[in-house]
């Protein structure tokens, strides 16, 4: 992957000067890519996130778990500012920094941010276009038109999403003709086609059967070497199987954040223990 200037999604070039030191340090300690610092978030008058502090490490899989309504999806959608689309939402306190740049500061171009922070949704949403057009959609937006280049990226992305062998003979048929699991992998392929650094996954397997789920989980394992993945899941086994770090949320608060192994075998917080052992939630 190419190295980009750290604040590529800042509108003004002046910002690229404050390159974070962590970026340059040797990769002995994991690099912090996303730093969430004392974040409060509101839907209208309802507080959804309460004083969240969390650091997501680069090229790792981080899982957000917790019962419904605990704020995990809200936090995920804060990271590429998809919450901006919902009326009456606001981040009232705290900062979210990616590569040291506060993504909620005034001069941030959301478009640039979303190019770097891709997203896979709970309900797979391939566009009603051909498989090929689904993959090239993001590229064409960003002004890449050469056919050969596009062909290359389509193949690379579909291979990356472990879908190439299944669809290579029908690239020009509708993406909606695929099975549920294939559709979700197509959405992942579409997200990686624009080469993001971070991929946010909002319960990507909640609508899939166990076989399709296993394939997506396998894919997450393949992707972790190249991308920073944050996955929201209801399925604790899934978090245990495929993540390196796990954050447990409850009622808008971060209860515990630790290595996945520790969360599931040796949680420090009694609430976490109750949740992961299935006693509530």
């Amino acid at each position, binding site marked *: 992957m190419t190295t980009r200037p750290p604040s590529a999604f800042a509108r003004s070039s002046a910002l690229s000067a404050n390159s974070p030191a962590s970026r340059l340090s040797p990769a002995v300690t994991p690099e912090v890519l996303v730093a969430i610092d004392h974040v409060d978030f509101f839907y209208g008058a309802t507080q959804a996130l309460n004083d969240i502090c969390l650091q997501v490490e680069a090229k790792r899989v981080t899982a957000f778990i917790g019962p419904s309504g605990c704020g995990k999806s809200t936090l995920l959608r804060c990271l590429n500012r998809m919450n901006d689309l919902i009326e009456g939402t606001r981040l009232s306190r705290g900062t979210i920094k990616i590569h040291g740049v506060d993504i909620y500061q005034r001069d941030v171009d959301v478009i640039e941010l979303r190019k770097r922070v891709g997203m896979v949704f709970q309900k797979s949403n*391939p566009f009603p276009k051909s498989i090929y057009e689904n993959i090239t959609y993001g590229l064409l937006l960003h002004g890449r038109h050469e056919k050969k280049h596009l062909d290359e990226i389509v193949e690379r992305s579909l291979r990356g999403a472990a879908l190439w062998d299944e669809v290579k003979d029908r690239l020009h048929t509708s993406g909606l003709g695929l099975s549920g699991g294939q559709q979700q992998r197509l959405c992942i392929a579409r997200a990686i086609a624009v080469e993001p650094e971070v991929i946010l996954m909002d319960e990507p397997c909640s609508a899939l059967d166990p076989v399709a789920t296993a394939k997506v989980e396998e894919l997450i394992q393949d992707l972790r070497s190249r991308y920073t993945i944050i996955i929201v899941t209801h399925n604790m086994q899934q978090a245990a199987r495929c993540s390196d770090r796990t954050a447990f949320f409850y009622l808008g608060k971060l209860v515990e954040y630790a290595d996945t192994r520790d969360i599931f075998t040796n949680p420090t917080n009694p609430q976490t223990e109750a949740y992961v052992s299935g006693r509530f939630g």
Partner: protein
Amino acid sequence: MNPATHLFQAKVSGARRHEKWVFALFRFATYFVLFCGLGVFLNIVAKGSRTVFKAEAPFVNIAFLTQAPESLYLFEWEGQKREMGDREFRAFKAAHPAAAQVPTESYVYSAGGIFPCIVGTVLLVLGSMVIALSLGVSAAIFLIEYADDGPFIRFVRLAILNLAGVPSIVFGLFGFGMFVIFFGWNVSLLAGWFTLAFMVLPVVITASEESLKAVPKGFREGSLALGATKWQTIRKNVLPYALPGILTSSVLGIARVAGETAPIMFTAAYVVRDKLPWEVDHWSDFFFQGVMALPYHIYVVSSKIPQNEYTERVQYGTAFVFLIIVALIATLSIVLRNNLRDRYKW
């Protein structure tokens, strides 16, 4: 009365009998509507097809569809009843000077054809469709995709809905005051286009809003999450899927409005005009000329000239041709929708 022979033996009860009567009434109401509709339709088709079609090849009355209206002259010549169109009669008088003295009976517009009216109607429909679609779709995109839902937007929506209830004659007067007099466009195609367009706008906006709303949120989010701007998302990933619905409803709305006489009678329609719309000196004159139009022509020939066997041909013929044109527009909208829908299905 026989004793019940089994558990579910049918019994005659008041509720049963009542039900039968009620359904009979509903059935009658339905058939009555059908009967009236068919009566009007078949009457026009039966009498109109006598004008439009012929028994011998080419089976279609080409003259009626390609000539301008003329006056019809009736007179007796050498013991025979003759009927001639204006031009034919003049040629006849030139050949037989004595014919000038013969007493004649004449009916305006009852000979010749209705070609200028067909052309005028097609032009009115096309122009108003372009204006209504561009204004209406833009407004719908603004209302659905950009505007924050507040009291003002709710008021705008209410105003648009109310616009749909405004009588067509009021639109006609509005067009007359606004475009014909205030803008000084006179009785012209342009004034007619805008008046008709304003009349279909509520239909177009409402249909476009519904079609846009029907596009799943996931398509928008998916596109935005890839780093598309809102406009890119709308143009590439929302509008194409909404288009079949927008076009179908809009074209149907326009087909209905194409039949309105009131909005064009002050703004665009002439009773009679010799020149065809493309016979203009300068291209810009095209927009500022009045045209003949089928609905107005029907109004004129059915109310301003006597009803008899000689005038009936043009009256029913015009109505029939008009029905066919409206049916064609409606068919076009359905074909269009089916083609587009096959391309973008979800």
